[in-house]
């Protein structure tokens, strides 16, 4: 069975502090992993995907198959990063329960 775990419901950090949103997955095959973001009153949108290995809005995520993790990181949080973040696996997407990031000025 496919499963995605995001252990933190809420993560609060100060502006300028590093951010790490945790994601662990369970899947026996070769996974495709994504991070989606939902800003207030906006639709869900793709933030990044592991196969592209790019940095979007300063965020990066590395797939660690040994630890079955795909943590999202940003070195310096900004207020505009406050949103709901979802880790997702494969297609059709299997979502984690989401982590709400709150960046405090």
């Amino acid at each position, binding site marked *: 069975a496919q499963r995605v775990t995001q252990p933190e419901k809420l993560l609060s950090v100060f502006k300028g502090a590093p951010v790490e949103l945790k994601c662990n997955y369970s899947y026996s095959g070769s996974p495709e992993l994504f991070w989606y973001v939902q800003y207030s009153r906006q639709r869900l949108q*793709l933030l990044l995907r592991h196969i592209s290995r790019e940095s979007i809005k300063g965020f990066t995520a590395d797939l660690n198959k040994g630890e079955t993790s795909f943590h999202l990181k940003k070195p310096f949080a900004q207020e505009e990063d406050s949103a709901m973040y979802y880790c997702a696996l494969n*297609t059709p997407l*299997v*979502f984690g329960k*989401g982590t709400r990031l709150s960046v405090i000025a």
Partner: protein
Amino acid sequence: DAGITQSPRHKVTETGTPVTLRCHQTENHRYMYWYRQDPGHGLRLIHYSYGVKDTDKGEVSDGYSVSRSKTEDFLLTLESATSSQTSVYFCAISRDVDEQYFGPGTRLTVT
């Protein structure tokens, strides 16, 4: 935003009544999906379609049916709405087993 619209955007209905939500796309993408979003559960797949008249069940399909008679429209029907189906419903599309683009959502309240 990708060309995805959902209608209605908000609906209040009574328990036991039928409800149909519509997802419309102008991207000619093959795949279409219906999710529901609930606090503490994230997004969960209800049904999806991989072509006209081709659909399959997702994680939480009980109480829901879908139809896709043409590429651009994917309908989600609650045959007899229950309070547990109060949720925000999102439609998504993808060209292939690839990045999914999401609609704006429909907030459904079943009283």
